[in-house]
């Protein structure tokens, strides 16, 4: 993966058709995310933030437009190929954590790794390290129901890091947490960013958005303000 532009969207459209009614959610979005960037997507509810994040995360396909991953157009890739790309290069953090309820913290962290090529031993080693890094070394065997919301989100962040991704996508990662816990989680994400991963985060909270280097504002499926001159070099 050469070049500093990791992801480029070129005039991306997303239209949902439901019961014969078209909903144009994204209307010609062009956007670039660079390596090591911390980007916040902001906008009112229903403006298309999550949809944009899903498209950036290769979870959804645009209706029109191109998606370049390190310069390669992956728009036409088959579903399983996209799964592999997500698994290898992306990490995901969700508002409601989405941990597997019957699996321990450690097993949850391992999950994306187990769908990849790496050996279980080295994955387990890294999972332990990551749990220690998010301050949960002593909670590895706990089930999600035995953890607080903040702790669950830390497990989810460790899970997002297990395959050493290039980008982490986070959709309102602090949406269910109190402000003190939110600040801890945001600090954690900011630290991860300084260690080289890009972060793309949806938020409508100004305090949270303040952790990002760049803010993109969306309204009615269009980018109002792409947050400045573009990705910084290096």
């Amino acid at each position, binding site marked *: 993966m050469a070049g500093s532009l990791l992801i480029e969207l070129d005039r991306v459209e997303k239209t949902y058709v439901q019961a014969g009614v078209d909903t144009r959610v994204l209307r010609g979005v062009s956007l670039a995310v660079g390596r090591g960037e911390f980007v916040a997507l902001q906008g009112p509810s229903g403006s298309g933030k999550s949809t944009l994040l899903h498209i950036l995360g290769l979870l959804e396909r645009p209706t029109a437009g191109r998606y370049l991953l390190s310069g390669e157009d992956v728009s036409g890739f088959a579903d399983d190929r996209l*799964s592999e790309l997500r698994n290898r290069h992306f990490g995901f953090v969700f508002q409601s954590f989405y941990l597997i*309820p019957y*699996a321990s913290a450690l097993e949850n962290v391992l999950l994306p790794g187990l*769908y990849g090529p790496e050996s279980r031993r080295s994955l387990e080693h890294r999972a332990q390290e990551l749990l220690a890094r998010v301050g949960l070394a002593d909670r590895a065997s706990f089930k999600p129901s035995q953890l607080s919301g903040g702790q669950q989100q830390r497990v989810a962040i460790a899970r997002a890091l297990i395959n050493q991704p290039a980008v982490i996508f986070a959709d309102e990662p602090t949406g269910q947490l109190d402000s003190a816990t939110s600040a801890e989680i945001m600090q954690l994400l900011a630290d991860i960013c300084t260690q080289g991963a890009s972060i793309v985060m949806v938020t409508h909270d100004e305090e949270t958005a303040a952790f990002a280097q760049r803010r993109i504002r969306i309204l009615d499926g269009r980018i109002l303000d792409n947050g400045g001159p573009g990705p910084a070099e290096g």
Partner: protein
Amino acid sequence: MRRALRLLPRVAGFALDAVLAYRLRSAFVILAVALGIAALTVIVTSIDGANRKALEIVDMFGHDAVFLLGGDIESRAVGKRTLTLTWDDARTIRQSIPGAYLAVPMRAKSNITARFGSRNFDLPVVVGTTEGYAQVWNWPLSEGRDFTAEDVAHGAKVGLIGDTVAQELFGDRSPVGQIVFLGSLPVQIVGRLSYRGLSGGGGSVDDRIAIPLTTLAQRFNLDRKYFRAIRVKFHNPEFMDAHVENLRSLLRHLHRIAPDQPDDFTILTADQILQFLAMLRGGLVAFLGLTAGGAILVGGFVLANLFSISVAERTTEIGLRKALGAATWAITAQILAEAAMLTLAGALLGMALGMGLGQALSRLGILEIQFSMKVFAIAVASALAIAAIFGLRPARHAAGLDPVQALRRSEG
């Protein structure tokens, strides 16, 4: 492909975690499948048992012999005279049918009590016969001797005792030389028939006493001229069809039957007995097969329903797995593996249940059950088939979930 092979054990691990996590679902599927497999186990083992039994019966009957019965099948059914065979018939058969070297007449009297000292035994049958009885049934004597021609000619009060009767009346002592009362008739035991262990019809073949046919006819006031059956043994069993034809022509001639009249006798061969047993077994297979098929179908539907519900409940988990990089096949494989683990557990439990049930039934003498690798293989194959057939729809449904839709749904 290599990637898939490496992932397979991990997918199995995910399946095992889920199977252990959703215990209620697991228990219901295991139980439902176990009932079907139990029924299947009973049917397979009992068919095996019936086959073995048929072979034993035919073995005892012998491929080198026929059983000649008085009356043809139709006249017997409408209650016409069935005592058509005579001493002359028996003698002529032995003398003039090529290859026939034994022709032993038989007649039975039922429900007679045998008594020795203070011990009683209710005999289902007392058989009246002649010398050659043990030989003609391939039934060796474990002690003593067979009847002689003199025994028969003089209506001697001598008898051959079945093994079970000997056990009951004499315990470990030898019955040979002892006097047993058949009703009021004292009979000296001269031989003991070896243990056959075959049951069928009115109880075990070892529950009998045989005496000379002449003695039976005199003492129990039966017709002296006619008897019920003749067993004929032949050399060269490979020509059995010809033997049977010769026998039929001779008897029609001896009984002066006009060409347009039906036989007044029936010739039973080992082949016919096999056919008859196969027919009986066919009924058993059809009945048990329907039962087992129904039970397995029910197990399959329970599985399909519980798995559909489970996939719906686990939409978030499945959407998450896909979002985090699980390939479509990995989801399908996980759900199918969950199903297979449960149906296999159900198969093991079902086999245990089926064997238990079978033991109970064989103790009642209804069926004969024996475990075999065949039962195991059929049970395991059916379990996998149930998982594949009934788990496929829920598995494909899960694999086809759109991760974004799945995750959005659980947010609402």
